[in-house]
């Protein structure tokens, strides 16, 4: 049962991601991206990372996607129409660099996975033998909170300051210029 759900989710992620990339209608491809993100959240649940799954929905679906849609709806329709009039053929000269980069990146990824041999990594086998694993009923939220406030405090604060800078910058850019007479 779990395996069937896993494969269905995996298929949905791949198929919707392909549609996002291939679709000529940009707004629709953003809505397809929503499907991708949601199915990906489902895969996170399978990895017992339920907090990450929900965070993914909050941040990407509730934040990033809506922001992208906003940007779209506030841009000129002409720009969108120009984008839709690309070449119709699947393989053409304009697409060659993109195809090249994609294929090379796939090769690197496959190579990395084969070299790493994720099934018999030393630290995974060690923690499996010592029973240092999480079970589906464990409550991982306190664990995440404690880790963030102790071991990962410095990166956490650095990210906060970075976001603060972005916010101040945005507020400064959006501010009205003072009139000087």
């Amino acid at each position, binding site marked *: 049962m779990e395996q069937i759900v896993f494969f269905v989710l995996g298929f949905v992620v791949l198929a919707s991601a392909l549609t996002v990339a291939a679709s000529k209608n940009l*707004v629709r491809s953003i809505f397809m991206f929503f499907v991708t993100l949601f199915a990906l959240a489902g895969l996170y649940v399978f990895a017992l990372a339920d907090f990450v799954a*929900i965070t993914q*929905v909050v941040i990407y*679906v509730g934040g990033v996607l*809506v922001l992208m*849609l906003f940007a779209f709806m506030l841009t000129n329709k002409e720009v969108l129409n120009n984008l839709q009039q690309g070449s119709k053929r699947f393989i053409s000269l304009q697409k060659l660099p993109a195809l090249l980069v994609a294929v090379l990146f796939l090769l690197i990824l496959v190579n990395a996975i084969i070299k790493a041999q994720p099934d018999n990594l030393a630290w995974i086998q060690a923690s499996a033998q010592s029973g240092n694993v999480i079970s589906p009923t464990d409550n991982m939220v306190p664990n995440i909170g404690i880790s963030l406030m102790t071991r990962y405090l410095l990166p956490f604060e650095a990210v906060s300051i970075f976001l603060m800078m972005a916010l101040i910058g945005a507020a400064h850019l959006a501010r009205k210029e003072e009139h000087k007479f």
Partner: protein
Amino acid sequence: MNFYLIYIAVALGLFAFAALFALFGVYAERKVSAFIQDRLGPTETGKFGSLQTFADILKMLQKELITPAAADKVLFVLAPFIIFIAVYLGFAVMPWGPGLVPVSLNIGLFYVFAIISIETLGIMMAGWGSNNKYSLLGAMRSVAQVISYEIPAGFAIISVVMIAQTLDLQQISLQQGTLSTVTIKFLGFANVTHIGGILSWNIFRAPHLIIAFIIYFIASLAECNRAPFDIPEAESELVAGFHTEYTGLRFAFVFLAEYSMMFLVSMLAVVLFLGAWNTPLPNMGTVHLADWTTGWGWGILWISLKSLALVGVQMWIRWTLPRFRIDQLMNLCWKVLTPLAFVCMLISGVWRLLLM
């Protein structure tokens, strides 16, 4: 195999509840608005017009489903269902009584918060898919408003979580009555673990949560697009906002989502601040009112009554206050509610460390 049947039965039950509540809610809204405006409201269909909404839904089911020629068909058709499903999924983690919760997630509160934000995406789909200027403007206004008001609502919720120390809605409920496993202190000093009742509700455990409750309630009005925050569907400016082009069953789904959302946010407010399914009657001496009125049947009764009371307040506010202008709305959110919510969160931290 048996528990799959139970899952399906629970899901169907919740759907039936949402539909029935929407029918009742529309009727109540009409009667409340009529009372406030010194009118009679529906009187003809059934006794006191009580069958009016049934007649309306019958009419709606028969109507033709019109899709505008220039609309993006897929998005247009899907949008009302996405909007409704987002709200409906939120009910999955809501506790109804002791031991009576569809799914007891240890991140339930966070889940509700996340799943509600999907509704904005549905509204965007509806606004864009309709290919209509009014719909698009309505959707933009709605999303801007919902995203802004998620921030004070989120911080009001965090100030409760800091007191309760859990994200599980059922645990938060348990902590507010006689079934609690932790000590409850009324206003931080009197031990009321065995007295229960209204004294052990979160807003009385830590009185600054009253402010958090008001912040959350105002923000939840904005998240449901209810008056005085109904600029997304301002009838006098935008026809009907993002659902201008919808007819028949699709329009019914948008409406169903709106009323389910009203109930969902009220229920969340009750769970977080007003003692969830716990009784308001305290134990007094030998009269164990709190113990007598705690149980799963009573739980359903109390949580429904409290949530319906909050829904009633929402309706009262809608028919009393005029609509906000967009700049007033954003001023209220960013300059009043957000700083206040931050202060609440700060007090929660100090309260937890010093008084609990």
